């Protein structure tokens, strides 16, 4: 874990309300794992007060990328950062996606939940994987850093009309459940649907959970999640953000 100022190298819009910020890294990026995140201080005064967590979206040479959607004050401030400005990162934080030996890998991204998958895809080069990217409408769609992408959209403006679960359902028709693993990232509503969908289907599935966070490294107890294997809550920032979908109460 480090706390360090990073210098903005680029900050571009890649889809509606969606940006990709690239930072020159002072630290060695070799050991970073897909699914990990950094807690980012978006301004150097205390407004907003808390850091904002963002998954590692990509790493190219000595640059680290975060993909983010403007949803409030913090992400809006981030979107105004210009090349040369500094922002402070705390991390890397959290656990990572578990790459096991499955024949088929499906990466499920709901909205900005797609963020960790460019980096993750790179670790899957030799594997048979597809990215299922669910959006509301085609303006939100992009394929930055992604290969083998299938889209679903709520309004049918791109890919399959429906949710990313509908798309998943279609894909799974041709796959052997036991040889397939799903990695999902998106809003809780999507996870709830996914959890329900997977009942009675023998498919492994890891999800990257979101939560309001203060610290991001386990000292505030602000990010609990109910977990089947534990009497006490697990912490999303420290025990997660990646969990087996069957072990958590969403």
């Amino acid at each position, binding site marked *: 874990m480090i706390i360090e100022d990073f210098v903005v190298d680029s900050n571009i819009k890649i889809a509606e309300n969606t940006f990709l910020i690239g930072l020159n890294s002072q630290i060695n990026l070799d050991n970073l794992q897909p699914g990990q995140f950094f807690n980012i201080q978006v301004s150097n005064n205390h407004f907003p007060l808390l850091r904002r967590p963002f998954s590692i979206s990509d790493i190219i040479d000595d640059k680290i990328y975060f993909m983010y959607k403007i949803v409030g004050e913090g992400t809006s401030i981030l979107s105004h950062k210009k090349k040369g400005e500094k922002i402070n990162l705390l991390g890397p934080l959290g656990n990572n996606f578990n790459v096991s030996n499955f024949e088929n890998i499906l990466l499920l991204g709901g909205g900005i939940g797609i963020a960790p998958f460019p980096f993750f895809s790179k670790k899957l080069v030799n594997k048979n994987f597809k990215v299922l990217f669910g959006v509301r409408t085609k303006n939100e769609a992009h394929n930055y850093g992604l290969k083998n992408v299938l889209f679903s959209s709520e309004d049918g403006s791109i890919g399959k009309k429906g949710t990313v679960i509908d798309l998943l359902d279609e894909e799974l028709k041709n796959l052997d459940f036991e040889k397939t693993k799903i990695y999902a990232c998106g809003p809780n509503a999507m996870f709830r649907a996914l959890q329900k969908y997977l009942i009675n289907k023998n498919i492994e599935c890891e999800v990257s959970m979101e939560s309001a*966070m203060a610290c991001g*490294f386990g000292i505030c*107890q*602000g990010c609990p999640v109910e977990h089947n294997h534990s009497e*006490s*809550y697990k912490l999303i920032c420290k025990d997660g953000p990646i969990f087996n979908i069957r072990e958590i109460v969403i």
Partner: protein
Amino acid sequence: MSEIDLSVNVGPLKLKNPIMLASGTVGYGNEISEFIDLSKIGAIITKSISLKSRKGNPPQRITETPSGMLNAIGLTNVGIEEFIKNKIPFLEKLNSTLICNIAASSIDEYVECVEILDTQETIKGFEINVSCPNVREGGLIFGNDINAVGKITSKVRAKTKKPLIIKLSPNTSNIFSFAEVVKKEGGDAVSAINTLVGTSFNIFTKIPKIKNVTGGLSGPAIKPVALAKVLEINRNVDIPIIGIGGIMDWKDVVEFMIVGASAVQLGTVNFINPKASFEIIDGLINYCKQTSINKISDLISSRIIE
């Protein structure tokens, strides 16, 4: 490294510097020890411990507010047994000055906790949390009941010779009366303040942003209130005060000390900058040099009011 004497006394409690880490904002020290050397900090206060472990409140537990945050953690903690077995040895190894914060649902539970923990040599003092706004019992019920605070103080006092600090609630109109009672019943110091009761709602779903509905407000937003409470106590009662509330940098520490605090605690800032305590100590040294102060304790209550 520096000729400035940063040590302070909080009643019988001797600290190498006035910077303490506040209860509930550094867990039991393990995570933050990756960023700072805990042996260099005045003291670390544990997350509130209770007799049995507590699961705490369901999510969502925190939300941000203008220059502040609301939390309703609900005193999540591992319980005394686990604390003694696994947490104390770690803190002992780090050579940190350990103050144990205790929360309980009854006066008897406070007493029992202190009795059990008093034998632990690593524990250098107790901070009794009678002011958590986020649990039904042992929280504001005690914190706003002056008789209960008196009783807790005297009964706990009877069980320990270690420094005894009572952490006061700001959600009252006369905090100094509480400090008065603490002094009368043998408490060594008070810490002020715990969080202010606050809430926040989502205007589209109309549900509270925090599952517990209300939470405790901390961070820079509450600093002026915290300073006023410290001042009120210091003007009315002769008891050492540990100032808490919204401290972000060394300037805030100086402000609390000028107003009347013998030491301070850092809370929310640890989440944003876990190295803050170290940077603050450096800042204090510079300030002392710049203003020709040799002993930082000279700052305490040095306010000038015409």
